[in-house]
């Protein structure tokens, strides 16, 4: 029987601009704080998984700042699911019984970064020469559709509208309005300013229907988590056991083949498959969740994930949103942290930071934005390519 695993300590730094700190400063800050939160030190940690997708720093470089103890390091990269992958990696090691404690860290320095894919275009060559897997004689971004993330995810949201109806520019903007409203209660968010629907819709258009405040915010930030085995947790103090958060499910999936999935990424089935596995493993259903942090990399993405995570009936995401359910005082609060649109999206940190948000509520430590009596929460990320990471977390009974 595999070990259960628990979050013993977890931390996220302030997200935003950190001009005086590099990736290692931020990663060290989060890692040391997570260790302190757990009541352990680097000497206790048996495995480290580290993600810094855009920055190129490594777990070994972090060790050289906070503790070179000789333990194995897994440097992981899984697009926007990198943080969830780091966490999943140490959970695997703990569940396998190889280590008692694991540390997962994700960090990114993205303040001021622009478009993160399709952000450069090579000059056309002097002669038309076929290259690559399409035999293309010139760059195809902008000539055969878009490769930029705002555009890809705009199409993912609009596709939902084509299938089920009910979507509009205003509907997607209202989703961003909700998340920006939620962010006003989160002191660690990059942006914590309430925005009116009008302000959101009149802001700079990036890729219709996504205006700038409907896109995830590039920022600096780090998050880290200490994972402990069930058997080890039993030997720890009552205070540690009381604050520990049970990992009821930890799931990673990739996108299965479907017609068209190599033309426009299908983030739906990969999420639905992950959600199904996660609910089954945790032995709960979506109706049992007290809060959800889902991957709103764009307002258009949040809509489809209501459906993919089965928070509503199939095809019912628009009605679900319009019912007020995903607002913090609704029946299924979604992204009470402000989501990626306001909290920010330091890529490799995101898949741990959303777990931190859930843990914060389950521990009853979320202050002004506490969801009262929260016992079970779900954290979801998507890495385009594609990967889905889902963690279901439960409050300790201790």
């Amino acid at each position, binding site marked *: 029987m595999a070990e259960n695993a628990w979050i013993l300590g977890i931390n996220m730094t302030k997200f935003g601009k950190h001009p005086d700190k590099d990736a290692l400063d931020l990663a060290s800050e989060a890692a040391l704080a997570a260790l302190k939160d757990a009541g352990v030190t680097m000497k206790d940690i048996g495995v480290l998984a580290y993600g810094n997708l855009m920055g190129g720093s490594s777990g070994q470089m972090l060790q050289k700042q906070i503790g070179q103890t000789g333990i194995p390091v897994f440097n992981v990269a899984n697009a926007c699911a990198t943080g969830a992958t780091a966490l999943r990696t140490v959970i695997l090691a703990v569940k396998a019984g190889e280590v008692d404690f694991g540390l997962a860290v994700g960090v990114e320095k993205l303040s001021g970064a622009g*478009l993160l894919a*399709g*952000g*450069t*275009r090579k*000059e*056309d*060559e*002097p*002669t*038309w020469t*076929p290259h690559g*897997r*399409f*035999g*293309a*004689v*010139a760059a*195809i*971004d*902008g*000539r*055969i*559709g*878009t490769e*930029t993330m*705002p*555009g890809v995810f*705009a*199409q*993912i949201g*609009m*596709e939902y*509208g*084509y299938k089920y109806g009910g979507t509009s*520019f205003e509907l997607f903007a209202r989703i961003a309005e909700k998340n920006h409203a939620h962010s006003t209660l989160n002191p660690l968010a990059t942006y914590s300013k309430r925005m009116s629907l009008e302000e959101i819709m009149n802001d*700079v*258009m*990036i*890729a*219709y*229907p*996504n205006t700038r405040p409907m896109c995830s915010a590039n920022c600096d930030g780090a998050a880290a988590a200490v994972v402990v085995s069930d058997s080890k947790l039993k030997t720890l103090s009552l205070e540690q056991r009381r604050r520990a958060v049970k990992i009821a499910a930890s799931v990673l999936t990739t996108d299965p*083949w479907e*017609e*068209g999935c*190599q*033309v*426009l990424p299908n983030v739906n089935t990969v999420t639905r498959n992950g959600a199904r596995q996660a609910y089954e493993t945790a032995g709960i259903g979506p109706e049992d969740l007290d809060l959800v942090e889902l991957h709103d990399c764009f307002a258009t993405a949040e809509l489809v994930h209501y459906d993919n995570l089965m928070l509503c009936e199939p095809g019912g995401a628009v009605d679900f949103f319009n019912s007020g359910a995903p607002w913090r005082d609704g029946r299924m609060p979604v992204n009470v942290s402000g989501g990626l649109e306001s909290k920010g999206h330091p890529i490799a940190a995101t898949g741990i930071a959303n777990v931190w948000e859930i843990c914060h509520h389950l521990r009853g430590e979320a202050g002004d934005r506490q969801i009262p009596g929260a016992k079970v929460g779900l954290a979801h990320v998507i890495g385009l390519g594609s990967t889905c990471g889902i963690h279901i977390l439960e409050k300790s009974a201790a």
Partner: protein
Amino acid sequence: MASQIPLVDYLVLGDEPHLIAHECEQCGARYFDHRNACANCSGTSFKTVDIPTEGTVTTFTIVSLAAPGIPVPFVSAIVDCGGTPVRTNLVNVEPDPEHVTLGMKVRLTTFSLGVDSAGVEAIGFGFEPVPSS
């Protein structure tokens, strides 16, 4: 005489320009890129099939911010061509949500991308609205 070359190898030029796909002989899955094997069934034999030149817009975005050198705004879309989704730009249409709509009928069109130093003209493709009859 100036020769022509398609922007991508799955665009066939000539009197009736059209797109082609590699279809898995085992399961029928279709691909536009070079294949090592089928992502659905791992089959390794493929045949070339013609893709219908008319289809329906199943999703789109109007890109206003792109990499330097890419003219904006432009419309990126997925067009369902007889069951095969095709990624494309929509052309010969105003790039705004009043003129571009989900479910609109479109057809393949080609255009010049310019002539290189050897006198070869590259031909690109897009989809344009089918005039309502």
